[in-house]
């Protein structure tokens, strides 16, 4: 794979990403360009999910670096983000032009409500597979309460809860042995 192919590949991921960039990334990286096998992809995705930040941004940095080093990562990230940013600014400019039209106001309100629903659905789907034990449910409830209900800062919440969660799984791991 050349540097240009790396860049155009991630350019495609960004452009195909309407409504779900994860699917677009898999399509381009595994099916069309065949850069990674399914299991390699899964392991990079898993790493991208554990690390802080957007999964796909992390994945792009890792894949770009794997094939072309530091500058590969820079190319992958630029390719991934440049088209979406141009489209976003274009959309926002058009939106500002017509934002007083009743149809546009209704469409924006509906899109925002729908997008909130999208996050609810994602949370439910994740919860169904992840919340398989009583302690998992308790930790999910704690982070939800802290951020969603009490509106406490994220950093504070994680500094308190994350070490406790890790300690609990260490303790459970030790007991299982």
């Amino acid at each position, binding site marked *: 794979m050349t540097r240009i192919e790396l860049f155009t590949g991630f350019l495609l991921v960004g452009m195909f990403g309407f409504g779900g960039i994860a699917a677009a990334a898999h399509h381009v990286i595994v099916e069309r360009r065949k850069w990674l096998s399914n299991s390699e992809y899964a392991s990079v995705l898993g*790493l991208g999910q554990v690390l*802080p930040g957007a999964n796909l*941004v992390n994945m792009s940095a890792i894949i770009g670096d794997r094939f072309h080093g530091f500058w590969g990562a820079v190319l992958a990230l630029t390719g991934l983000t440049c*088209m979406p940013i141009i489209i976003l600014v274009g959309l926002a400019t058009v939106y500002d032009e017509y934002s007083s039209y009743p149809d546009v106001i209704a469409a924006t309100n509906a899109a925002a409500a729908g997008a*909130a*629903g999208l996050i609810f659905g994602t949370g439910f789907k994740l919860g169904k597979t992840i919340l398989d034990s009583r302690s998992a449910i308790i930790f999910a409830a704690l982070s939800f309460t802290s*951020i969603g*209900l009490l509106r406490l800062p994220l950093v504070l919440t994680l500094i308190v809860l994350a070490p406790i969660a890790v300690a609990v*799984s260490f303790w459970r791991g030790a007991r299982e042995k």
Partner: protein
Amino acid sequence: MKNDVLWAMGLTFFTTAIFSVGGISAMIPEIHRQAVEVQHWMGDDQFASAFALSQVAPGPNILLMTMLGWRVAGWPGLAVATLATILPTSTIALMAGRGEKRLAHARWYMMTKRSLPPLVVGLICASALVTAQASIHHWLGVVLAAGVAIHVALARTNPLLPLSVAVAVGVVAARFGYF
């Protein structure tokens, strides 16, 4: 004045990004808290429209930060917001990618991998609540959000489909005075 905003925004997004376990959707409440309540860059309605635009556009969901930056400080704001969000985490990712083989066998990595997801589920549900409160002001909004949520929870198709249906229903309902 403008430089102060750029610095504050860069620092806020940088810090939040480093702590954004579970991806960007998990950090929406913190971004909302900072932008609307702490730093007063914008009101709830502006946040909601920026959020809606960033969801409708294709691309990774760091676009929310990009849009906020653009709204608050134009092109410099866009650059600062995007880079502050991407650079710290992709640097960490790059290093982790290079050490992946060693990392995969480290016990603390396994433990962290196993123990953080429940926290993330809570964070994402909190995001859903915060965005719903910022963007839903009408009973039809609740119906549309519920419709999209149920579709996403049950079906595996591209979420752009239920979103477009929601937008179409919203526009038609508004024409008849119901939204």
